[in-house]
């Protein structure tokens, strides 16, 4: 294992992307085989790298501290392995799901290009290569959304690009500040106290990382993309890759680059971002009528738990946040893939039109239910474990309000998944959807694998916690701080767990109440909350995107540009339009008139020119 091998996770997918893009449509089989095989190689090397754990490849690059520096250590090798794992599942799924998509070839190529950039970003140990790979992700993000092919896809793609671009810009600014403060761009050497300029750098980099993960208020493109982009894309980027990358960077920022202390302003800022994201996004998720949109709001809401966990700056909270990241990537990817499976057979994901699919699509239903229970935090699945750890962390900081916010999130998460699962897989068959069959194996297999992992990571939570999570905290945990995850998490009979279980019961009662009130129609189960006085108006405003900073920003810019256009541009334009062009064309007209085609004239000019030149030269020569 030479250090040069670290280039493999970057170069292999990049080369594959180029090949996949060039392969003609008729060689689709070869394309699929190549893609799955390439992903398998990456998974294999993911395990190899995970076992090696310590490798560094640095070559001088641009000078001035800017080196092409890749570093493999336990955290990056863990993320690398996770990325490769999701890549192969998504690739397998896409071979069926994107088969007849008009731009399926491009989809595969972009997926692998994304993987190349993501691997590079995870391995980068110098800010300049990091920014390079991080920005590369923007390009594929845009490309992948436009593949959705709906009339609004282009608009959503631009929205995603601008929002992510803003976050990246903030991150670059933060990196610049941090570089100034610390004097080095080598990431492994940086560790500063977040005060003064460094505090600004922290906030900017936090925006970059949390924005990539999709935390509020940088989330608004995700629900739009849920309907405008291919569902495979949703399972790939917003559900898995972006969470892994964003939370990876957030953890690096708050654990390595800056030493965030529990109870410090930075810690509280992070916790506020997390708590607000949890509650607001889950409330939006509750009232969605489309399965994909519902899932996308949860993809935002769950980021809140991760940010909250890391923000506690307490070992168990941080570990919970990171554990939640990998858990979330698994079940949310699984949920999106199940939604895709339903869409594949039933042709729709609208809750109203679906029902009773558990008999026709038992495997998809099983996968969905396991993942949905996991995300809701039902014992003994993985979501339960990581959420418990975040609750404990939040409580230990002494700010109970954050724990309460997290519990509120748990209530509505479960309620909305009861509604979704009930509408789609239980109840009566609807007339809108004809007889359907279970999806093909390439679609079902990834879902079942993810569901299986959810069970495994929940029941044997010791395995991921000791294997993946604990080493990341090595060197960060306070001396003597309790790092005994298992005793905290799996003990059902402690106060925290009992409150959590109480939340789930409450959610079930809420759902039952709404279900009965809505005339035994599951998709109306959230209506009682939706209709609450005051809340209803807020929901309406949110649906009209009043709270979307992007949409509001666009409106403000429109207004500003109108004012500028009327007050500044038009007068200037008048100067150009009337004064400059008229003078210009007058002058041109005179010159054209002089060029009348009479060569005698031209000759006369030449002679006049000669005389003037001779005169001028003689005069000047004296």
């Amino acid at each position, binding site marked *: 294992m030479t250090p040069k091998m670290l280039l493999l996770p970057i170069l292999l997918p990049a080369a594959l992307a180029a090949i996949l893009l060039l392969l003609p449509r008729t060689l689709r089989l070869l394309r699929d085989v190549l893609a799955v095989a390439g992903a398998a190689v990456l998974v294999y090397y993911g395990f190899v790298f995970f076992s090696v754990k310590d490798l560094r490849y640095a070559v001088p690059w641009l000078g001035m501290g800017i080196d092409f520096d890749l570093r493999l250590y336990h955290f990056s090798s863990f993320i690398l392995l996770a990325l490769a794992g999701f890549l192969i599942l998504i690739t397998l799924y896409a071979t069926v799901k994107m088969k007849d998509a008009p731009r399926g070839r491009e989809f595969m190529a972009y997926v692998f290009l994304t993987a190349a950039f993501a691997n590079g970003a995870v391995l980068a140990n110098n800010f300049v290569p990091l920014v390079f790979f991080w920005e590369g992700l923007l390009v594929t993000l845009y490309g992948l959304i436009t593949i959705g092919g709906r009339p609004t896809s282009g608009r959503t793609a631009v929205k995603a690009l601008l929002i992510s671009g803003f976050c990246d810009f903030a991150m670059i600014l933060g990196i610049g500040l941090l570089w100034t403060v610390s004097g080095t761009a080598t990431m492994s050497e940086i560790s500063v106290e977040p005060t003064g300029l460094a505090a600004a750098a922290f906030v900017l980099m936090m925006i970059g990382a949390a924005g990539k993960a999709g935390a509020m208020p940088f989330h608004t493109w995700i629900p739009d993309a849920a309907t405008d982009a291919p569902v495979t894309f949703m399972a790939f980027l917003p559900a898995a890759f972006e969470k892994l990358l964003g939370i990876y960077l957030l953890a690096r920022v708050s654990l390595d680059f800056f030493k965030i202390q529990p109870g410090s302003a930075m810690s509280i800022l992070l916790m506020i971002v997390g708590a607000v994201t949890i509650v607001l996004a889950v409330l939006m998720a509750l009232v969605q009528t489309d399965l994909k949109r519902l899932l996308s709001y949860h993809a935002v809401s769950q980021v809140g738990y991760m940010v909250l966990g890391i923000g506690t700056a307490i070992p168990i909270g941080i570990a919970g946040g990171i554990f939640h990241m990998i858990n979330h990537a698994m079940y949310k990817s699984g949920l999106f893939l199940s939604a895709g499976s339903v869409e594949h057979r039933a042709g729709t994901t609208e809750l109203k039109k679906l029902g009773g699919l558990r008999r026709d699509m038992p495997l998809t239903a099983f996968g969905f239910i396991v993942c949905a229970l996991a995300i809701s935090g039902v014992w003994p699945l993985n979501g339960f474990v990581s959420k418990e750890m975040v609750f404990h962390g939040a409580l230990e900081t002494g700010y109970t309000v954050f724990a309460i916010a997290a519990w509120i999130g748990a209530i509505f998460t479960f309620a909305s998944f009861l509604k979704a699962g009930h509408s789609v897989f239980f109840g009566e068959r609807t007339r809108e959807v004809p007889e359907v069959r279970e999806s093909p194996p390439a679609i079902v297999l990834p879902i079942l694998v993810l569901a299986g992992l959810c069970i495994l990571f929940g029941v044997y939570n010791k395995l991921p916690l000791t294997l993946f999570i604990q080493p990341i905290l090595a060197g960060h945990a306070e001396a003597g701080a309790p790092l005994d995850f298992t005793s905290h998490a799996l003990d059902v009979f402690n106060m925290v767990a009992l409150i959590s279980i109480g939340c789930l019961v409450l959610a079930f009662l809420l759902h039952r109440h709404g279900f009965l009130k809505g005339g035994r129609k599951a998709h109306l189960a959230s209506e009682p909350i939706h209709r609450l006085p005051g809340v209803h108006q807020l929901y309406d405003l949110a649906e009209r995107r009043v709270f979307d900073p992007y949409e509001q920003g666009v409106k403000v810019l429109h207004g500003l540009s109108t004012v500028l256009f009327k007050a500044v541009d038009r007068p200037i334009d008048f100067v150009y339009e009337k004064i400059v062009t008229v003078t210009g064309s007058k002058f041109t007209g005179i010159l054209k008139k002089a060029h009348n085609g009479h*060569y005698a004239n031209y000759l006369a000019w030449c002679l006049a020119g000669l005389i003037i030149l*001779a005169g*001028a*030269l003689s005069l000047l*020569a004296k």
Partner: protein
Amino acid sequence: MIILFVALPLVVAAVLPLVGKVSRRVLPDLLANATLVFLLVYAAVTGRALIAGGPLLQQVTWLGEAVGIRLALDGFSLFMLVAVSLVGLAASLFAIDYMEHYGGKANYHALYLIMIAGMNGLILVNDLFGVYLFLEVAAIASYALVAFGLGHDELEAAFKYLALSVVGSSFVLAGIAVIFGMTGSLEFGAVAAALRELDAGAVVAIASALFLMGFGLKAALVPFHAWLPDAHPSAPAPISAVLSGLLIKVSGVYAMTRIFLNVFGLTPALSAVLMVLGAVSIVVAAFLALGQKDMKRMLAYSSISQVGYVVLGIGLGTPLGIAGGLFHLFNHALAKGLLFLTSGSVQHATGTRDLDEMGGLAKRMPITAAANLVGALSIAGVPPLNGFWSKLIIIIALVQAGEPVFAVIAVLASVLTLWYYLLMQRKAFFGPLNEKWAAVKEAPFWMTASTVLLALLCLGIGILFASTVATWVQPAADVLADGVQAVTGSWGF
């Protein structure tokens, strides 16, 4: 063996009409292009090695007897040779398809090679009479080439071109006579040495004025420019490309620069006059270009304007100004050659040169449209294309030398340039497709290939401008910056 640059095209040109009797198309095409490829490779690959140890001199002999022609190759002439072979080759490749409907390909290629030989000779000679001789060789071939279509317009344009060009040549001859009368010598080195001892300011001024008018007419500087917009558009497209891209630069700018900078030495008076001529050309021709409806006429006026930039840069006389001027000469040769070729493609496809009749051709001729855009943006000076860098160098040189007024003129005129080129691009290629051209097809292979070649060169040189300047332009600019020393010192036999 630098005589090959002159002798080879002449010999091939002599053989071509005979070959034409055997094969009407394939062999003449092959032979002419192979000759140009050889010249390009010879100049570009071995040229720098030849002059590594200083200028290379060759005495031309005939049957063992020395004749009165001596050739010299230095950085400046090598630079020009490369430009001539490159653009000459592109235009000749273009002609493979384009000249198909004119007929008489063998004759065309023969005349074309004579013109190339004339230009190469002019670049290589090192005496004043040789300059005149090869000036006329190239010019006479070009008269015939402008008239090659034998239509009414072509004949009229050729006649007008001839009438004014002969005036220019005769003034050059008069200038040579004055110098010969004063110094009793024609060779650059001897003339330069003699002039330094003579101290005859006024007579040199008269000779300079005669040369300025003669070469200025060839280079189409305002006010000696009026023939060019008639002559260049009427010629077949590859000839327009070579006339605008090469001939005015070789027989005008090169000859003028060589004589003024290396033989006379650039006096402040000459410098001032050159810069004023350049600036006036830039502005007047840019306005004239703006008013044109005929695509090739617009390009022709643009040539006048861009030669103004070259003369402005060289006339400034600082090493940076000279380098900028020469780099712009090269870039303009590429880009203007490219634009005349694309305009030829358009004319070939639609039969018109009127911009108002075109419209939306990008939908039918995407490659031509893209190449045209590259050329237009390059001349207009849009980064990262080559024209941007050369204009930038000229402007920086002007500012450094304390000539802010000229710098501002150069900047403002480049806005005008961008304006009329965007006008051209929009009217011809963008916008809705004129239904008349619904059946139009992309130009044939060789025409497209040669335009793409030039467009790629514009782009590549723009990106690699630093190494291009260091490899080709700087040695040429060094020769000019050395002034009189360049020919009196190392050129002696």
